């Protein structure tokens, strides 16, 4: 049952990305291009998602459990550390270079575009490099 709901979540997420236009790297680069013709679309997408989640997450977290007494697995780290800032800065550089983050990278795979597939494989390699070089 849980496998089904996580499938549904991914499926709906992908449709949301498609409708919002965030699968299109031009929109992302347009958002990040503050010195050019700035495209604020991403803010509306994030705003829409956060608007929903602020309410739903509040009630789920207040209850302390999900459907059918499902335990919540929330991030435990609270402090801003060097890894968070450096990692996010590196991610932002890659995001600006190609205009794609991990969600759209997956949602765009079906296009079978060579550059998009190369980006995806390279992103997976970056994740594996991190996993092989980090201590834990």
């Amino acid at each position, binding site marked *: 049952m849980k496998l089904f709901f996580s499938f549904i*979540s991914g499926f709906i997420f992908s449709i*949301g990305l498609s409708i919002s236009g965030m699968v299109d790297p*031009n929109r992302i680069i347009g958002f990040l291009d503050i010195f050019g013709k700035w495209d604020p679309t991403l803010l509306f997408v994030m705003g829409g998602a956060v608007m929903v989640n602020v309410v739903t997450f509040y009630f789920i977290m207040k209850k302390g459990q999900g459907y059918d007494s499902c335990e919540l697995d929330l991030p435990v780290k609270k402090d801003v550390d060097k890894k968070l800032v450096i*990692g996010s800065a590196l991610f932002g550089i*890659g995001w600006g270079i*190609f205009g794609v983050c991990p969600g759209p990278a997956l949602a765009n795979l079906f296009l079978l575009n060579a*550059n998009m597939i190369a980006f995806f494989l390279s992103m997976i390699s970056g994740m594996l*490099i991190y996993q092989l070089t980090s201590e834990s």
Partner: protein
Amino acid sequence: MESWILPLFGGVIIGLATTTLLYFNGKITGISGILGSSLKKPTPEIYWKYTFIFGLISGSLIFSFFYPQFFNYEIPMGMTAAVIGGLFVGYGTRLGSGCTSGHGVCGISRFSKRSLVATLTFMISGMIAVAVVKLF
């Protein structure tokens, strides 16, 4: 139709998708984390990640059968940008514990200080990257 309506609507759908995963699976929708940790040794505890990823890949595909106009864009960047950008996104999101979904959409909705710092960091470094790329 106003240009911000579809993005806002897409954002609301993304919010509903992340709410689904929190409510039914107790998990935060962090796509880089889900993808990265799904590369580890398979155990039954992570099977939900495979179905989530499958949903994310297939949602846009099914959607494109009905609304192909959402996928009418050219991929603006070439192979070099794909490979370099992919490495940065893959490594950076794992080092920084998240991407646009985990930090940007879910973290900000939980009022997480770490996620707010991460989101501002990758947006600013993305803006710098786009400005630098434009010089070439």
